């Protein structure tokens, strides 16, 4: 589904990714861990097409297409979803409107008619129940005045409505209390299927207690330093990152 080869990228003129390679197949869940500044968020932004992040070398194929040649909106419509580490607040645009517009953009891409208002509400309400969100959030501005945890739930709600092929979740677990973490993890698990893939970017093992990854990668100095199974995350929890980043140095 996703094939990253020798990816080099800069952000604000600084080299951040230095020859990153990663293969993600349908049905897999990958966790990317690493210390601050290792390039985790940069990777997610580069894949989502955020302006200001320049790819200087390498390639990324998504479902057989050159992802880097696509606009951000085309990437989203092709089935790539980025769950933001810091979801932006957009006062004046309500959640329901954004969800519907995003869903219709995807449906248009697939040659489907716009979603019926009743079907849309039925879908959104079922997903909100899953995320334990009050329906009042639908009429509020996107993330406006939301707590940190509510913003993260809202990201997962969007993901569940859009049902992407590949979800990149950038530190979705940060800032969540124990109960909220379980709810968010449950939402992520709901999307897990043989047809989809998940990439979880995280600092901590605790999310992986709820969403078991097939692969754990450690990112350092802009490339994958080590790949292992779930046990690697447990080892990182015990030993930290220094023993890996030190080796890389």
């Amino acid at each position, binding site marked *: 589904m996703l094939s990253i080869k020798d990816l080099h990228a800069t952000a604000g003129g600084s080299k951040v990714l230095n020859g990153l390679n990663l293969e993600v197949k349908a049905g897999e869940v990958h966790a990317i861990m690493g210390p601050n500044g290792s390039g985790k968020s940069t990777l997610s932004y580069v894949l989502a097409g955020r302006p200001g992040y320049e790819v200087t070398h390498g390639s990324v194929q998504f479902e057989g297409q050159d992802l880097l040649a696509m606009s*951000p909106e085309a990437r989203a419509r092709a089935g790539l979803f980025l769950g933001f580490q810091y979801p932006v607040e957009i006062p004046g*645009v309500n959640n329901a409107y954004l969800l519907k517009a995003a869903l219709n953009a995807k449906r248009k891409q697939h040659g489907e008619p716009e979603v019926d208002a009743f079907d849309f509400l039925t879908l959104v309400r079922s997903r909100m129940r899953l995320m334990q969100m009050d329906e009042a959030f639908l009429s509020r501005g996107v993330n406006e005045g939301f707590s940190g945890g509510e913003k993260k739930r809202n990201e997962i709600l969007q993901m569940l409505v859009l049902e992407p092929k590949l979800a990149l979740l950038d530190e979705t677990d940060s800032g969540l209390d124990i109960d909220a973490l379980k709810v968010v993890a449950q939402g992520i698990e709901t999307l897990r299927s043989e047809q989809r893939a998940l990439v979880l970017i995280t600092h901590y093992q605790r999310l992986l207690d709820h969403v078991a990854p097939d692969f754990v990668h450690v990112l350092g100095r802009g490339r994958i330093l080590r790949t292992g199974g779930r046990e690697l995350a447990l080892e990182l929890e015990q030993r930290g990152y220094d023993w890996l980043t030190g080796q890389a140095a």
Partner: protein
Amino acid sequence: MFENIQKALAERVTGDAALAAWRRASLASACAQGLPGPRDEAWRYAPIRGMERLSWVPAAPSPPASDSTSLRELLPPPLPGFARMVVVNGRVDAALSSHAPAAASGTVVDSLQGLDAAAAADVDAARALANNSFAILGRLLTEQPLQLVLDSTAGSRVQLVFVTTAAGRDGPSPTTLRMTVAAGCRAEIVEEHLAVKGVAAFANHVVDTALHSGSDLLWTRLLVSAADARHLETVRLQQALNSKASLLQIAPGNTGLRSTVVATLDGAASQLQFNSVALGDGNQHLDQHVLIDHRGVGAKSTEVFRGLAAGRARVAFTGHNRVMPTALNTDTRQSLRSLIAGREAEAIARPQLEILTDAVQASHGATVGTLDPQMLFYLLSRGLEPSAAQSLLKWAFLQDVVSQLRPAELRTRLEALLLARLADPLLSDLAP
């Protein structure tokens, strides 16, 4: 130009000696100071170039237009529960107006030929307009000044529609309105300005409004004109003890707009909420200059402006908040934000705080910028087209003000109008 005006007025300065004297004095004052120009700080961004070359002789009114199909099509639908007064080229059109609902609720709607006589005795009004020759000329040249007395404690609701069908090449069509909200009364005014397309209409509108003690006014002003029209206006609002006013201006764009607003919070504990939205596109040039003068103890004001400049438009707003030594414990807040949505567009947001007392709470903020790139990327990352995402953010930018529009019928209509201006089919979903 003043020779032309003197000649035009000569025929009108008859009858009452005091009135004639006042008109001569006013004209002399206007002659002495001439017209303001770009070198005057308060008029720096106003679209007033070439005004001195106009003859300033009012355009001849069109023939009675009540039965004109194009005029009827131009008029907004009546608002339920509102009396309606339609003024075409400065004259009330009785056939298009309906006074009945207002009369039922105790409102008096009348035209007043002798308004100038009242104005002559109004020292405050003369002082407020002394530095504004456009306002003086507007008052002098108006043939049929209008007066509204709103004196119902149960609430008066009036829809005022001003239509200009006359060509503006020789000078603006003047209208003068005096409104009074009686003590303890509530009133809701919707004031709309329209112009026939294709004639390059030009209006010069002067409004004097007095709120007596304990009165409450919700005043929505829609400065819509045809895209080729110009609109010049002076709005004066004077508030007495414990009065409350909410003034909301929407300027969706025309060739040129200068709106001068002077609000004086004379009375103790008087309150003013001033909201304004301006959308400029193409070569449009929209300028608003608002002075809120706090004079009474415990006066409170909030000012919110949202401006959007696209194409090669210039959208300017100056918010001058003055707190006089008498206005102890004033609370004044100001939020001016402008968005530049075109490479050649220009947006100006100027906050001016002048505080002449110590016991005051004042806050102000002014920003001019482009669409937030983080917000834009967020929407793109959800699959929205760039044009749709930009339109959506522009719409969101205006919501602070637009969401406060009342009544619902008016909000629905104006939202549709603004959405059309933002011109993206995706946003049609947003209309209620």
